[in-house]
């Protein structure tokens, strides 16, 4: 079977392709946009497409057979598997198949795509959180040094003071530290950081 993956996100497309290696025999191609003549040359049996790709509407229109499109494609819906369609929508992926292809052959491909889309989403969310945590930790370190210098506290005491401010105001430690640095900047007559 030939599978075409259309995803404006190349990293995610590669992740899906990697997941499909386990399914044999499969020939996989990746593209950021759907190119009709390239697709006609490849003749995919299954097209996996990211929900955010505007090319979905082009794929929807290939339902009718024509000279330029001898193999009509339809959106893959497995009626024996209730909830799968909703799950795919939530995962942000859809599959189009050459009309008549058996659901049993397509389902594993869609399932790999769905799990890889979830994984990518999770990886991106983790990365964003790690970046935010790192930035917050740096801010706390700087606020701590400021307190140590201005209030002649040791590191432990400076940290406890920040913790107390955080608990008293019900705000995260990073936010309290950022405020402190900004105010210090203003008091010193510098630009707020």
């Amino acid at each position, binding site marked *: 079977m030939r599978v075409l993956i259309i995803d404006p996100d190349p990293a995610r497309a590669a992740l899906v392709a990697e997941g499909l290696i386990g399914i044999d025999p499969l020939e996989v191609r990746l593209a950021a946009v759907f190119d*009709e003549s390239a697709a006609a040359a490849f003749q995919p049996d299954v097209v996996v497409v990211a*929900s*955010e*790709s*505007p*090319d*979905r*509407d*082009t*794929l*929807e*229109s290939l*339902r009718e057979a*024509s000279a*330029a499109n001898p193999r009509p494609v339809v*959106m893959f*819906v497995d009626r024996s598997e209730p909830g799968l*369609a*909703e799950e795919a*929508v*939530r995962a942000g992926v*859809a599959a189009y198949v050459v009309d008549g292809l058996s659901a049993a052959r397509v389902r594993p491909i869609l399932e790999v795509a769905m799990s890889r889309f979830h994984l990518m989403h999770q990886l991106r969310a983790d990365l964003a959180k790690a970046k935010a945590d790192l930035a917050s930790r740096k801010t706390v370190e700087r606020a701590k040094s400021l307190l140590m210098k201005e209030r002649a506290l040791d590191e432990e005491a400076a940290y406890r003071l920040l913790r107390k401010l955080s608990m008293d105001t019900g705000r995260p430690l990073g936010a309290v530290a950022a405020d402190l640095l900004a105010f210090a900047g203003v008091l010193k007559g510098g630009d707020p950081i």
Partner: protein
Amino acid sequence: MSMTGELRLGFIPLVDAAPLIVAQEKGFFAQQGLSVALSREGSWATIRDKVSAGALDGAHMLAPMVLAASLGVGSEPRAMIAPLALNQGGAAVTLSTRLTGDGEPGARLAHLARRRQEEGASPLTLAVVYPYSIHNYLLRHWMAGLGLNPDVDVRLTVAPPSRTADLLAEGVIEGFCAGAPWNAVAEAAGVGQTVARIGDVWPSAPDKVLGVTEFWAAANPAALRALLRALIAAAAWAADVGNKTELAAMLSRPEYLGVTPQAILASLGEICFTGGEVNPPRPEQAHWLLEQMTRWGQIGEVASDKVAERTWRPDLYLAAEGG
């Protein structure tokens, strides 16, 4: 969803998404006690699927999509309704400037299509935005008026509106029918010329509607009423010529349309957001759309009265407007 929960509404980057964007930006949703998250979507198919699966509560939809989804043509059937029409006007046919030199562009297109056939060359390709759209019906009707059979004499394809200007420039397509601002964008780029506007052909054709599932509407009557009231107020704001500059600047932002305010301003004159009979969904519009779908072979015989009554819901509109 309760009145305190967040509503998720989808839109496609088009000028006629203005009522949703204005309701968010100018506080009309908030005035009705609604908290709304707008979600910009890349395709009509995704809009349909997300509304169908409940991943969106409602969306900016092509009017015929509500009928197609309800009838289960092109997708699994899901009962959808149109409790509000968002606009009229904006759809237009734009041809490549390669065809619009001297003389009548329509006649030139017809001539070229015939010549390609005689020479056995590949047919001219034109694009619409979605199979179930008045853009598809307008382009087909316009070509039929030139004596062309749109299913035989040319090749009709679907292309994302945001790519139409590039596809014209590259010679992949010779023309397209899309909504605002994409005709103005192609004209501004010097690659296309608008040759037919829906306002001159079918001035009262419904273009976009608010689409929700019948299930959601029944389960969330208060939220739907608030949503309709907010959108009616936002449509009035968008229609006020005094707000034109602010509206164009708002829509042009990257999170909304991401095109120049000039392209939006150039299109605003063609679009009616409110006034007269624009917003109430009139069942005769559903009848007319079903006729178009039948004319072009998308559906067979359907019980038009029943379908129109179930999908086009002026009762919900009137209840919101009156209360």
